[in-house]
């Protein structure tokens, strides 16, 4: 996987990534700022490599066992030591698992603030559907935009979905998950959302969905976050016929940043 963390972009080869990074000093390798309360700070050996003993192929089985038992603990809420609440819903989760995947939750659970004392984190202003996706991701390392109804331990039978029952436009959801993951510093989920978004954008595409998603992308994250923006621009570039449609014209007219990105992209492609 050749991925530039800073721009949240994927590259086809290591060489391409390298070129990308060298292109501008801004593209220096993104190193998240980490601080600890103790005096020693070593980042180097945070993760031992899985495949250091090259001769031994990795055994997937323990990984599966671990994952399935995580799902089990999620279902029955055993050993739970933290509540994530959103609106009416309460998710009984495990701090170690949540904090390991999100720096936001790690900081929230640190001594000092209300959340740490009450062992509850209230995401009151968030979309309950996104919170559900996040918690699901914590335990499954995956999510599904088409409503899943696993027998969770949380209150309420089902997350309130669209009253019409129509399926959620997928591209928009991925864009929202992406922004959500960015806000709550869940890098794994962010990557996953990016991959899902890219897949949908290159396969089945609905213009309306795309336009909505484009708006979401250009408003929900900071400008420096290139991940989804690049895909939106590319997709638009690949479908020039869309520009003939009024609604598309309307959107592009309104969104200066998208227009700018598009022009720069065309320039890059040598067409301008």
């Amino acid at each position, binding site marked *: 996987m050749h991925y530039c963390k800073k721009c949240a972009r994927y590259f086809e080869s290591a060489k391409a990534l390298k070129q990308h990074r060298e292109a501008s000093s801004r593209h220096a390798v993104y190193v998240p*700022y980490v601080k600890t309360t103790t*005096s020693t700070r070593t980042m180097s050996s945070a993760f031992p490599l899985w495949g250091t003993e090259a001769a031994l192929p990795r055994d997937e089985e323990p990984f599966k066992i671990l994952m399935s038992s995580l799902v089990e603990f999620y279902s029955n809420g055993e050993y739970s030591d933290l509540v994530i609440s959103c609106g009416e819903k309460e998710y009984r989760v495990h701090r170690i698992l949540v904090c390991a995947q999100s720096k936001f939750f790690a900081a929230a659970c640190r001594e000092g603030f209300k959340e740490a004392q009450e062992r509850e984190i209230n995401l009151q202003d968030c979309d309950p559907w996104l919170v559900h996706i996040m918690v699901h991701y914590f335990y499954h390392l995956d999510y599904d935009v088409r409503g899943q109804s696993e027998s969770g331990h949380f209150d309420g039978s089902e997350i309130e979905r669209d009253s019409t029952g129509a399926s959620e436009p997928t591209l*928009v959801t991925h864009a929202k998950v992406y922004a959500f993951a960015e806000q709550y510093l869940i890098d794994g989920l962010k990557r996953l959302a990016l991959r899902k978004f890219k897949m949908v954008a290159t396969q089945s595409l609905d213009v309306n969905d795309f*336009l*909505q998603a484009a708006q979401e992308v250009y408003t929900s994250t900071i400008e420096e976050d290139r991940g989804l923006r690049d895909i939106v621009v590319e997709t638009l570039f690949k479908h020039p016929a869309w520009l003939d449609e009024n609604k598309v014209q309307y959107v592009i007219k309104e969104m200066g940043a998208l227009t700018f990105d598009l022009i720069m992209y065309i320039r890059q492609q040598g067409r301008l």
Partner: protein
Amino acid sequence: MASRNRIRPIRKPIINKELSDFEPCWELLRGALTDVHTKNAGHLSFEQLYRASYKIVVNRKGDLLYQRVKEFEETWFRDHVMPRIAELISVNLVTTALIQPPAASAHERREMGEKFLRGIRDVWAEHNTAMNMISDILMYLDRAHTSTTKNPPTWPVTIGLFREHILKTSLGKAATELNYSFVVFDILNAVTLDLINMERDGDIIDRNLVRNITAMLEALYETDDEIENQKLYLTVFEPHYIENSRDFYRRECEKLIRESDAGTWLRHTQRRLDEEQNRCETTISTWTSDKIAKVVQSELFMAKLDDFLSMEGSGLKTMIDNDRVEDLSILYQLICKVDKNKTPLMGPLQSRVLELGLEIEQNLKNTDFSTFSAVAGDADDAAEGGDKAKVLTLSAAAQQTAAAIKWVDDVLQLKDKFDNLWTTCFDQDIMIQSAMTKSFSDFINMFPRSSEFVSLFVDDNLKRGVRGKTEAEVDIVLDKAIVLLRYLTDRDMFERYYQKHLARRLLHGKSDTQTEKWMVLRMKSEMGNHFTSKFEGMFKDMELSRDLTGSYRDHIRNLGDADTAQIDLNINVLTTNNWPPEVMGRSISQEEGTRVDCAYPATIKRLQDSFFKYYLKDRSGRVLTWVTSAGTADIKCVFPKVLGKETGALSKERRYELNVSTYGMIVLMLFNDLAEGESLSFEDIQATTRIPAGDLTRTLASLSIAPKARVLLKNPLSKTIKSSDTFSFNAQFVSKAIKIKAPTITSISKVEGDEERRETEKRNDQTRAHTVDAAIVRIMKQRKQLTHTQLTTEVITQLASRFKPDISLIKKRIEDLLVREYLERVEGESAYRYLA
């Protein structure tokens, strides 16, 4: 959201709204920051605060937030933190810590210093906690904003305030009052180091406090960029600490050299090293472990190492001499840490070995063995020379033997001593072993008689192995002898002596053949086949001779010749090359020009002829020479009843079995034909028997002087044999034992006299000359052409296992070979060519 399929109106960015968005958010955050600082954050929702700061950043107001936070923190720090520190810094503290050398007592200083440090620590701890919480709140700001701008993240900026506004400034009024410029950091260093020095002097300090302070310095950096090797601990504190420690240990070392001895110093150094290690782990920082160890090693250990080692009464010499195992172990351990080559230890160690070795030689010269032997009589084989009572005055030769044994014993003891030190103190260090081996080899080879003495030592032990010592004991001693052998460079000399000694042991049956063979086997594995070939030949001769004797005896029995059957012949046929020339009697023939066979009595002559005939039956063409000087004879003597004695031993006829040398037998046979009361003069005897004068003197001495076997009466009665003496049969001879061994007063003394020695060396040099010749020819035959130096080196390497040839000898041999046209000079070069 009625329908998700419909395009929603675009959220228009409204500038005003954003600004108004920012202010409420900032208000919220500002309140939170204050609460955090006042430790009142328990009611704050992290999620809310985080979201507020996230919102600001997403709305591209990160810069503003960053500035506001910075301002807020700076103000807060100035108003609430700095005054607390300023309070701590009193004029008194600054004076004590920085300006004057401490006038206050250690106790006062400690109180004052700890109070100051405690204040710093508390303020730091609060600041640190608050900054941690605040940077958690501003996490998204750091992630998205500061990583794209050049501004450092909030954490180092805010934590850096501590460095900028406390450590690197002079707070309070002390500076102006004292008119002395300083920064707080100076006080901090001075106080901390003072505390540590107090601990070094034996006080008890608050280690935890000091550790907190150093941890603080580890968390702070020179700049807000937080470059890993720019931690204040490393850039400011550690250099001070090292410098201070250097001074401390330099002074301590000087004090030690004035006031104590090397043993104390070693232990002290060891203790200090442990202490510093411990201090780094508990009080300072493990980063400094190696550096401080180096300081102690160089200042306390290396600085005066030579002075301490040469200290009279406790230095290395004393440690070695008195086996101060612990001191030496510590010394070794310390030196290993400092110097991989261990030169400071190796040099003195080597010279001490050499000194002690030469001391042994010196002692030998100063010891008077004539009295020494009286005490350690049993250590002296000269006991054979007479009764124990007579040992008091030993012959010069016997004294020499004792000296030889003593020398080897002493060398072995020295070797034991150093081996012991090597295992217990020096961790069986290979380098030290080889250095010691070299020194041993050096002094042993500096002693000119080492080869002879080692051989004598083996001789003595093999002989004594037969009587008294257990096999295991002998084994150990012989093992050691082999070790000594390894040190000898002139192995050909040793070979010569060993051959001589072995010959005597074999011929006189004085040692256990099993042990002998085992010893030779050991030498073989140690020095190679060629070294022991002669010895093995000697063993073979002995075995063949035993068979020969047996078969000859059978042969005689079958003949049924009654006349010769009375004499039981036990013969050793020796191959000339395998046996030393002394034994073969060649030396005598060389000296006297012609070889004179002594006149054997007729019966003996017949026996000789008979054996010779038998011997030639299977081995025609061989020549047998009788070596009279090496043989012995058992004679049955009958002493008739002495007339006029009715009681006592003399009243009866007495039969004794007398064991004498072959010469002794010849002499005694003369008295068989003599009438009672008649006597023979020395000249008569010599004329009849043609025994060489020297041998005859000794033979007669053994038969007429030693009381144990005085079967001849000498006239006049004196202790020496003169050519004018006359001898007669001692009819009154009485002995308690039936079997009597006439003491052999042999010319083959254990140790060579100076003259014999010169002789041996001369002979050895001749052999060496041949060996060198052979080596040169062998090398040249193979290489065809070589330069002079190449040839010399090759010869030396080839012969290294046998002896160390003189360069001048090699040169002489080359010249000789040139004359004999084995070699020729190559024109214009200093090289030689082989001539086939």
